[in-house]
């Protein structure tokens, strides 16, 4: 069986010019209609990922109107009017961006990853709907890789974690919020508004117009509408089957409804009525920004995989995502810890748990402290202190449960993907738990 060579696949990220036609199809499109209105000349030139075609087309055209005096302040970037009419910067401009080069160097990316690809990772689907020019494909590859590595690492590192905690831990490592933080820590800055004239080193997304991008697995439940309306219960098993990698329900095809509603609005505006005032800084725009940042990180991971391969992307994920600290013990929330502990002891053939008061102080005072230990036969499972006997007992039961759930074979556990590297040592079976103590 032939070995796959992902590094040879990357040609499609830097697509050939429209003239060459060919294998990967024609990466060209007409400028977006709503942006053409801004530029004085609506030329129907063709954009492409390769810089050769653009260089051939680069000629002295008159500059796009932008309200400024071009004689006194000649534009710093000589951008063709056609390029400014596109919803995202032309790929060949990536070579001139200092921000992009700085980001490339800051992440210590391999020189195999061209700046054009890095520029493409920063174009969100909400800014440029064309999947040949936005990062949705790369982000999809990236999210599968990130989620796979995080999941396998969590499963091997904490084999007894309940599924709901795994979902939360996944959300804590690979969700939108942590990846947004990763993007911020990389120094990815958002552009104020996407457009062809924007510096390619800035993250381009629209907070008001969600784009169409398929960046997650999962099915749309038929009862999705009622889940929120009637607060229907979703079992863990159904979450694993239907929902996305974080156990969250998949909403309607992203963007489709929102786009339709926006388009309707646009149509109405054209005829009558004032332009609606854009809302800034609300929960929706913040979540849109978080998603865009997270997609940029995922797309970067996808680009690393596309250009450098499996080992490189594994190291990249390890150093940028798995290296983050997440206190898994804080993710737990118990409803009745004592009964759960009793169930656990029964399942494991331990003697039923018994709470014993170990010490106490200030029983008659305003702030008494009780220290309660939980024993199973002669073994002390856990102990905890509390302001009254019940609280101390519950806390001790929680500690006992956490001690069970957070069992770990060690910090540097081997994960299944380690076996993919050549010359790996034979696999020693990892600890696998028999399942959850109580079903949720």
């Amino acid at each position: 069986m032939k070995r796959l060579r992902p590094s040879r696949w990357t040609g499609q990220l830097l697509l050939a010019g429209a003239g060459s036609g060919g294998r990967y199809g024609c990466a060209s499109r007409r400028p977006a209609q709503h942006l053409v209105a801004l530029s004085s000349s609506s030329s129907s030139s063709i954009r492409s990922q390769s810089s050769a075609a653009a260089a051939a087309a680069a000629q002295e055209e008159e500059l796009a109107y932008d309200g400024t005096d071009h004689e006194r302040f000649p534009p710093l970037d000589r951008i063709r009017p056609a390029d400014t009419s596109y919803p995202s910067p032309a790929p060949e401009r990536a070579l001139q961006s200092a921000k992009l080069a700085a980001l490339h160097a800051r992440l210590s990316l391999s020189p195999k990853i061209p700046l054009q690809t890095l520029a493409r990772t920063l174009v969100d689907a909400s800014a440029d709907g064309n999947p040949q020019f936005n990062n949705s494909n790369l982000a999809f590859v990236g999210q599968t890789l990130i989620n796979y590595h995080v999941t396998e690492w969590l499963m091997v590192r904490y084999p007894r974690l309940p599924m709901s905690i795994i979902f939360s831990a996944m959300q804590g490592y690979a969700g939108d919020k942590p990846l947004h933080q990763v993007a911020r820590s990389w120094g990815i800055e958002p552009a104020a508004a996407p457009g062809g004239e924007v510096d390619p080193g800035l993250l381009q997304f629209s907070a008001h117009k969600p784009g169409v991008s398929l960046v997650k697995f999962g099915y749309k439940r038929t009862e999705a509408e009622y889940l929120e309306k009637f607060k229907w219960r979703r079992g863990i098993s159904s979450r694993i089957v239907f929902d996305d990698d974080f156990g969250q329900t998949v909403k309607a095809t992203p963007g489709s409804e929102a786009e339709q509603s926006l388009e309707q609005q646009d149509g109405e505006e054209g005829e009558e009525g004032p332009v609606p005032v854009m809302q800034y800084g609300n929960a929706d725009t913040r979540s849109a920004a978080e998603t865009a940042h997270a997609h940029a990180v995922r797309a970067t991971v996808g680009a690393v995989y596309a250009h450098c391969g499996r080992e490189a992307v594994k190291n990249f994920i390890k150093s940028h995502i798995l290296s983050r600290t997440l206190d898994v013990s804080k993710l737990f929330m118990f409803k009745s810890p004592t009964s759960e502990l009793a169930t656990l002891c029964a399942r494991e053939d331990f003697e039923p748990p018994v709470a014993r008061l170990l010490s106490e102080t200030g029983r008659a005072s305003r702030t008494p402290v009780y220290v309660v230990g939980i024993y199973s036969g002669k073994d002390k499972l856990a102990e905890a202190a509390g302001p009254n006997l019940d609280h101390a007992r519950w806390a001790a039961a929680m500690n006992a449960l956490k001690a069970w759930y957070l069992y770990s074979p060690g910090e540097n556990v081997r994960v299944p993907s380690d076996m993919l590297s050549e010359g790996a040592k034979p696999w020693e079976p990892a600890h696998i738990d028999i399942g959850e103590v109580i079903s949720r």
Partner: protein
Amino acid sequence: MRRIPRIPSVASALSSSSTASAPARSAAACLLKRDIATRSPRTTQLRSQTCAHSQRRYLSVSSRSLSTAQQVDTDVARVLEEEAAVLQAGAQIPSREIQTDLVYPRGVVEAPRSTDVTDPEYTPAETAEGLEEVGGLANWWEDPEHWSASKEYVGFGPQEKVTDPAVLEVLTRRAVVEGLIYTRYAEKGCKNPLREIGGREEMERALKVEVDVAEDGTATLKKSFKPVWADLNRPTPEGKPVTAEISPADAQQLAKSWDPKWKTISLRDPVTKFAVAKRIQRLTGHVVPDGKLFGINTAAGLVAQLIKPPKPKKLAEEIATKSELVSLPNVRVFPRRVTPVDKEKMVGRWKIIVQELEKRELPVVGTGNYGKAVEKKWILGKA
């Protein structure tokens, strides 16, 4: 320090402080004016100035003598007394006609006095108000026509420096050869040391001299350098100085034809080095600073000192040519100031700003027909 020729001491010895001379000057000025006013029309201005000058000199001395009488020593006092006696006697002061080619205001025409006017309708003005002002000497020396060519500054070197690299190289070779020849004959004495530029022929003669350069940079002149020595000794001809010019193309050809070894000629000998530097100044107009001259030990060093790229006018140009910043991928050098509008364009906000301003029919840049906000002065409490 001014010296008064008749007194064997310095002028400042006469007055203890400089303030004492101020009233004396103004007094002299008054007298000068009176003198001009009462002079007959036929007297020339030049002569009057000469007289006035000498009188002022006498006057200033005498007034000083009054103010600082106690401090003046006996010799000075005696001379002053004699001069005062001469003044009182009204003797004629000997004056000299100055030979000059400057254009003086000659042939002053004075208007007839009001008593001499015969026109019955003429009424003399009582105040100066509304009268036309004619003539005057206030800005006489501002007019370049009143200066002669002899008063123009003539430097040792040409007014405009030679900047072409090839021409500079050729001229440096000439200067080095002539400097070496001068050093060889310096003991015999040179009447006109390294002053004469000469014409085309002289330059060609100097450039034809062949030089053998040893490993240590010692130069040995081959024959055919005696005519050059003769050229250097020739007295400067009258009139406009002769200059030899060579085109950059010719200079390039010439410089290529030479063995590049000539640039290793040693200039360690201070006599040679100084002679060459002086000759360089004469030929090219470049003055090699002493600090740089100290470090220049070969002809190549001299050429490198002279050939300099022109100073860029903008910082961006300098960075583009010299700095390594341009080659760094994470640094961008802009050819002009990055304005706030440019920054807005880079982040994509400018198109929205333009759209919104135009929608409201407001000027995109500048304030248009709108003045400052009237509320501003209310906020600042200015009524």
